[in-house]
């Protein structure tokens, strides 16, 4: 027992460790997925990880794009808001008609004052903010629109549509403030000494720069650069992708574009990042995120691998108690069957999801920022579903290993019950059942098809109707096929019965080819066949044994009989004078001779009746054979005063038989007449041919009363006289009948009063 307990304990421990490992792997996997999902670079594919440096990454390109957008805002608005490098509040912003013909122009100062009054201001990052405490809509003149004449910050855009030209003063102010914000943001951002991005944009009438020394040549000493000139189509650059849209911006911001002025723009990023700007932080963040993403990826993959390995191992070990044990240990749930298990699994999942929603999600909300709530909730649900399925899976695996999965399933029980139902009912009821089922199904489906095709004419319904028609057709084809198969099986069984009736008892139907009631029937038929075969074999065997026994016994009788006959003969040779002794000797001699015939006949009869005799059949002349036989018997008959009257055809008639055996048949019949015919009577021998058959008949009047049937006469050891005092073995007719039949002839006896008639019939051979 202690020997047994140790491996069991170790095995259980192993399983527990594997299970824990599986859960841990799940946690690792989930962590990895979460790290990837929550990374800033999620959804960028894995390509971003491929970039060797930050400067080649999409993040850098994105930031550079944003910065250049901002930069060109500055270029666009500098001269709108600035005079000699300083913000000039006297700059005129826009002009509109207060009343038709009365034009009013607002300076920046006017705008700022109005903005303050209306609650618009710029925040720390120069974004326009509207103070919510100011009730703009209700104040007077808020919705008053004016026709705008021009806007300094939007000089390029002509006011084409009438709608564009009419704006409220608030909207104009907000627009101006927004532009001012963009200008200010860019100005502060790209100040020399705070930015790692350097630029020099030179037009014919204006130039912008935050680094005077930056030229097309010096730009190349910085980490990344792009140089645009009016003489080249594509910018010269070493960026990971060519910023073609920048060319458009440079051209658009050219103040001399109407006159076709030339331009040149140089952008450069110092990739040593001396200033702590967005690029600097971007680089730091990039490295960080990359590491986290990488770790996430590794965790995910390793978690997945461990999950799979432990899952496979657990599936292999599940149900066993030791490593080598073949026995499967099942719990109650395992025995419930797959359908119940699936139902349980579904219930479990619903319960878990309910609990997760009520409790799990709340806990998550407490510990996780709201951005990730959705993700976290989904993740929790997935994990719970996975665990529920896992538990069910193991239950199913154990069931499968124990071989009860299919056995306990409702599907099987249903199938078996259906099969059993059809086994128990009669063929007629089964036919009726199938007929009504098919009819019901056809009617229902036809109604459905007609209904659908009349009611709906959409493409979908057409497809459904087509599908239903196809299904109807297939259903009927299937039903027909089933019926056809059953009928085929019945045909086979019928054939087998027929051949069995014709004597072929060696019936062995392959039960695999049959189903349902037909299989039961085929099985029964096989049984009958086997029974018959066995009975037949037994009968043949016992006949053989009987024949062998008779032969052996007759041998044993013959030896002492030889001595008896010989010594009787020796006594006779001594010529005893006493007439009494002479008389006794005669009796002894007769009886011993009789005994000799008896044993010989016995052997012959048993051989003839078991067919254990060789037939050497040839074409012989039946008439000649009868003549020969007559010759053999005529004188013998005369001894008893019998007259032999033969009526034979004059021509020869050929039959196919063994002459020696047929002689034996006739000899027995003639001997029979000799022994039992009434003294001084006539024996009639007759031969005739009719319809290709030759009939030989021998008739005599019996000396004794014939009170037994012809059938009994051909039984072995039956004689016309029950006393058995006369000579003869009682086997003659039996031998004659057996021998005739062995040669393919017919042997018949009939008794009419004292008239005994025997006939032998053979088919005539047409020479």
């Amino acid at each position, binding site marked *: 027992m202690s020997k047994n307990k140790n491996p069991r304990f170790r095995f259980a421990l192993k399983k527990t460790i594997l299970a824990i490992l599986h859960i841990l792997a799940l946690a690792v996997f989930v962590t990895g997925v979460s790290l990837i999902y929550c990374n800033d670079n999620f959804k960028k594919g894995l390509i971003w990880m491929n970039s060797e440096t930050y400067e080649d990454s999409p993040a850098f390109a994105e930031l550079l794009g944003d910065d250049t957008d901002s930069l060109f805002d500055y270029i666009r608005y500098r001269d709108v808001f600035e005079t000699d490098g300083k913000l000039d509040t006297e700059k005129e912003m826009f002009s509109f008609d207060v009343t038709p013909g009365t034009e009013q122009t607002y300076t920046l100062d006017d705008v700022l004052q109005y903005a303050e009054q209306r609650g618009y201001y710029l925040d720390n990052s120069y974004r326009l903010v509207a103070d919510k405490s100011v009730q703009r809509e209700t104040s007077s003149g808020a919705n008053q629109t004016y026709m705008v004449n021009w806007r300094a910050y939007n000089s390029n855009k002509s006011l084409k549509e009438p709608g564009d030209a009419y704006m409220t003063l608030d909207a104009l102010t907000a627009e101006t403030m927004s532009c001012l914000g963009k200008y200010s943001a860019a100005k502060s951002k790209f100040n020399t000494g705070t930015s790692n991005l350097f630029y020099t944009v030179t037009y014919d009438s204006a130039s912008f720069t935050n680094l005077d020394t930056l030229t097309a040549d010096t730009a190349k000493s910085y980490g990344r650069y792009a140089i645009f000139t009016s003489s080249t189509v594509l910018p010269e650059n070493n960026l990971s992708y060519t910023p073609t849209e920048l060319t458009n911006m440079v051209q658009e911001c050219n103040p001399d574009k109407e006159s076709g002025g030339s331009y040149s723009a140089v952008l450069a990023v110092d990739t040593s990042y001396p200033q702590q700007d967005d690029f600097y932080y971007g680089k730091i963040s990039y490295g960080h995120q990359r590491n986290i993403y990488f770790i996430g990826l590794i965790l995910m993959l390793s978690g997945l691998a461990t999950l799979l390995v432990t899952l496979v191992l657990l599936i292999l070990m599940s149900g066993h108690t030791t490593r080598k044990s073949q026995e499967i240990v099942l719990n109650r749930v395992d025995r419930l069957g797959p359908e119940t298990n699936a139902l349980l699994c579904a219930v479990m999942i619903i319960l878990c999801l309910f609990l997760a929603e009520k409790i799990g999600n709340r806990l998550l909300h407490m510990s996780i920022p709201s951005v990730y709530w959705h993700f976290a909730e989904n993740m929790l649900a997935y994990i719970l579903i996975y665990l529920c399925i896992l538990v069910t899976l193991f239950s199913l695996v154990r069931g499968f290993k124990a071989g009860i999965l299919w056995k306990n399933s409702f599907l099987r029980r249903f199938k078996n019950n259906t099969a059993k139902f059809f086994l128990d009912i009669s063929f007629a009821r089964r036919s009726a059942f199938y007929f009504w089922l098919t009819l019901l199904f056809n009617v229902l489906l036809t109604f459905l098809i007609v209904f659908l095709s009349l009611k709906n004419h959409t493409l979908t319904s057409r497809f459904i109707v087509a599908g239903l028609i196809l299904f109807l057709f297939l259903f009927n084809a299937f039903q027909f096929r089933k019926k056809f198969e059953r009928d085929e099986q019945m045909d086979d069984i019928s054939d087998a019965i027929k051949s069995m009736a014709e004597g072929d008892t060696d019936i062995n139907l392959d039960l695999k080819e049959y189903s349902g009631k037909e299989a039961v029937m085929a099985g029964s038929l096989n049984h009958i066949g086997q029974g018959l075969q066995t009975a037949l074999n037994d009968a043949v065997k016992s006949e053989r044994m009987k024949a062998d026994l008779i*032969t052996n016994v*007759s*041998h044993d009788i*013959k*030896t002492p*009989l*030889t*001595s*008896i*006959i*010989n*010594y009787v*003969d*020796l006594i006779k*040779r001594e010529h005893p004078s006493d007439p009494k002794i002479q008389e006794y000797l005669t009796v002894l001699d007769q009886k*011993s001779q009789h005994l*000799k015939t008896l044993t*010989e006949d016995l*052997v012959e009869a048993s051989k003839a009746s078991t067919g254990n005799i*060789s037939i050497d059949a040839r074409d*012989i*002349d*039946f*008439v*000649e*054979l009868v*003549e*020969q*036989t*007559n*010759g*053999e018997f*005529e*004188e013998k008959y005369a001894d008893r005063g019998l007259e*032999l009257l*033969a*009526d*034979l*055809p*004059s021509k020869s008639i050929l*039959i196919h*038989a063994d*002459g*020696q055996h*047929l*002689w034996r048949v006739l000899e027995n019949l003639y001997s029979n007449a000799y022994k039992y015919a009434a003294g001084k009577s006539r024996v009639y021998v007759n031969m005739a041919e009719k319809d290709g058959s030759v009939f030989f008949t021998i008739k005599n009047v019996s000396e004794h009363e014939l009170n037994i049937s012809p059938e009994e006469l051909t039984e072995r050891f039956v004689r016309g006289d029950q006393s058995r005092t006369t000579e003869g073995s009682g086997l003659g007719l039996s031998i004659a009948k057996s021998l005739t039949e062995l040669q393919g002839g017919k042997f018949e006896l009939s008794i009419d009063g004292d008239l005994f008639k025997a006939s032998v019939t053979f088919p005539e051979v047409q020479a």
Partner: protein
Amino acid sequence: MAEKILVCDDDREIVEAIEIYLKQEGYEVLKAYDGYEALKIMEKTPVDLLIVDVMMPGLDGIRTTLKVRESSSIPIIILSAKSEDSDKILGLNIGADDYLTKPFNPAELTARVKSQLRRYTKLGNMSEKPDSHIFSVGDLEIDDDTKEVKVSGNPIKLTPIEYNILLLLVRNAGKVFSIDDIYEQIWNEEAIGADNTVAVHIRHIREKIEINPREPRYLKVVWGVGYKIEKQP
């Protein structure tokens, strides 16, 4: 000098009965009760004929016959209770000269012994007569000049018709004659169907020349075909 005949059978009474019969015929009889004993006797004394039973303890008749045939060509008669055709065929095939079934007719046994011995000892003396009027088949001899018929040297009395039938068959030994053939040849008339005459005559001839008319050696009945005289009985 009397011929020596060895009789071998496990049934002593049968052996003694045979001894009595053969001694009456003037033969010297040696007795053995199984195959080994028979072989031992034959080693010591040369014998002229062997009568052997089949079913014996020790060495049976078949194997004894085979042993004897390894060194000797004396006539062997098997005397057995086994009466099947297959047993007879087996016995004759392995080297026996004759096969008799028990229970046997003593007269038939002695006749067959005589026949075998004559053939063995006087082989070749018979057919040396150049006279074409003497016909012989086995022990059957017909002298057409004197109209004498002899079987094993014993004269047989036949009627003229029987004699003519026998002569016809002997002259054409091996050939089968139907009843009609014989009738036409002997009576010089056309045969008109059913007549037992020929068959009855044949039966009479058989009873006269055969030792056992039921198992004829010379005049054989081919049932359903006709009659013939065996060339080599």
